């Protein structure tokens, strides 16, 4: 489970969808791995506008990363050195960091979703569907 993905996921329980506490899910007991992934600046600059930055800052801090409090803006034309640093940082956090084992917990209902072998499990038991 990547931080990138966590930025698009909230609690699967229907009654939680209306609660601001259901997003983002909170990492707990996370075992991290850093995987080397080819750097793809175009892809990252396309991703940036889609990120919920506040949620990303929250998720990152849960895993021990500190991100700037406000979303960095890229110069629209060519990528300068400052942008390059921003993208490199995003690459490391979004694409190369993975939660291999651990849990994601809903801030509203407290349900715990397991992460096993990097794959998150969002299936709900019968009493929650």
């Amino acid at each position: 489970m990547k931080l990138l993905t966590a930025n698009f996921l909230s609690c699967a329980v229907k009654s939680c969808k209306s609660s601001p506490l259901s997003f983002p899910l909170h990492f707990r007991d996370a075992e991290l791995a850093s995987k080397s992934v080819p750097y793809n600046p175009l892809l990252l600059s396309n991703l940036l506008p889609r990120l919920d930055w506040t949620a990303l800052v929250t998720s990152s801090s849960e895993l021990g990363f500190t991100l700037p409090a406000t979303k960095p803006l890229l110069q629209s034309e060519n990528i300068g050195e400052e942008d390059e640093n921003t993208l490199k940082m995003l690459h490391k956090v979004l694409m190369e960091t993975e939660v291999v084992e651990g849990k994601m917990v809903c801030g509203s209902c407290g349900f715990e979703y397991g992460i096993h072998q990097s794959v998150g499990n969002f299936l709900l038991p019968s009493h929650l569907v």
Partner: protein
Amino acid sequence: MIYLCSVRRRIHKLPSFININPLSRPPHRENIYISTRALSSSGHRDTKMAATGDSLAPVSNLPPPMREYLIHFAQVHETFRLPELESLAKLFNIKYEILQYSEKSPFARIALESPTAASTLISRSILSKAIYELWGTGATYPDLHASVKSRTSHLWHLYHSSSFKFSFESFNGMRTEPNKRELIESFSYVGFNGPIKMKNPDETFVIMEDYEATSILDPILFAALKIDEKLETPSRNPTHLEQPHQLYFTRFLAKSSRAIIETYDLKKRNYIGTTSMDAELSLVTANMALVSPGKLTYDPFVGTGSFAVACAHFGGISFGSDIDGRMIRGSKPGKSLRSNFEQYKIMDRFGDMFVSDLTNSPLGRYGGQKNEQIFDAIICDPPYGVREGLKVLGSRDPSRPKVPIIIDGVAQHTRKDFVPPKRPYSFDKMLNDITNFASTHLVPNGRLCIWLPTADEDFNEFSIPAHRNLKLESVCVQNFNKWSRRLLTYTRHETDQEEVDNTPADITEETLDSQNPRLARTADALNPFRRKYFEGFKTPPSEE
């Protein structure tokens, strides 16, 4: 079939060919070739007129900057070819006009603004082979030569010293080698005097011949041939004519992406399953979904990741989920969905894969509609439910109280080895859930591609899923022996559309129950395709 032939000797015998007034022509090819003028609306209309006229407009007389090109399609998956082309034209924002097209022929004429537009349009195509500049066409060789001479004599000098070769593309017919050589030499009036190179020539000129009777567009001409397709034990295919009925002379411009089918061939893929979609149709689907670099794609029934890999090939960031986590993790180390991304060296485009159910999806985030709109493309081949029956989260017994199951003081769902209960799911309800999901989670103008199976006898009653926020773009059919499957492509409207009064109410299990209380909740009642499968046709779908 490519045939290479030397015409050097002939040209050397007639050196006067090279002196066709080169000095009276503009010195730069670009000046003749690429007009930078924007296409006006009137220019567009003129092109249509040129297309509907009895004779072909000479290349030089087409309204600028439109020019005629020829696309050489693969003669497979015919109903997918034009929708793929339309999708690529939309993706690259290319203006085009189809001038001549038949599903029975691999050759199609198209008007485009420039050779660059032509090369770009075809660059990602899977169902075409290449694109050519059209120099002439005719029903007979004398007609073809007349057409080439009237259209392109002003262009010949541009190539008089280029290295070149000639080749042949014959569809459903063939010629002897000496016969081909003779025909190639009949073009010697163009006066090319450059070296003939079999490998990597500057220019390749191709003579194309169509021998297939059913591709004749004029119904009167076709009727006049009196072809009896039901001949018993014919010595040769009755629709393959002795002589070609349509000829083209073309200059090669650019190849398509068809060669990558080989790269992604399932036979050479590290990890596949019994229902993996083949490489060719996965890549076509990614084209239809307008996947391009940096776009976010999602497959809610990802399985072994056929679509995920195809989307990543075209630069998309692939996300996927499956109700069965074993499919994603794989059976043994090094054989997993992720290992396919490693094999193709596309890990930078591996988004994530997770276990979830479409009806209770974790995707989406609090904060209004914009926050829910995540994906540029949603692609899926939903399970047909033939072998196991479709499953969705929940208890089989709807009267069961909604409380956690506790055994020996332990809530069972908190155990690591807990497997959530699943119940039968209706195929129609699933389609409804997919379109609703797409309406919520696609960005404006994002695309949804769904594959659906149909028993052929159901063809007339085949109903295409509809959603007020999704516009149907195309329906493509792949036929098998006794069943077929269809690729449906939709575009998410820019804004939410008004609810229409006659839209059928959401399909719920309750309405199904009331329609047929006795059968409801059995796998067959919930899935007509599964029922047909066991009642009638024997050819197994891909799930077997």
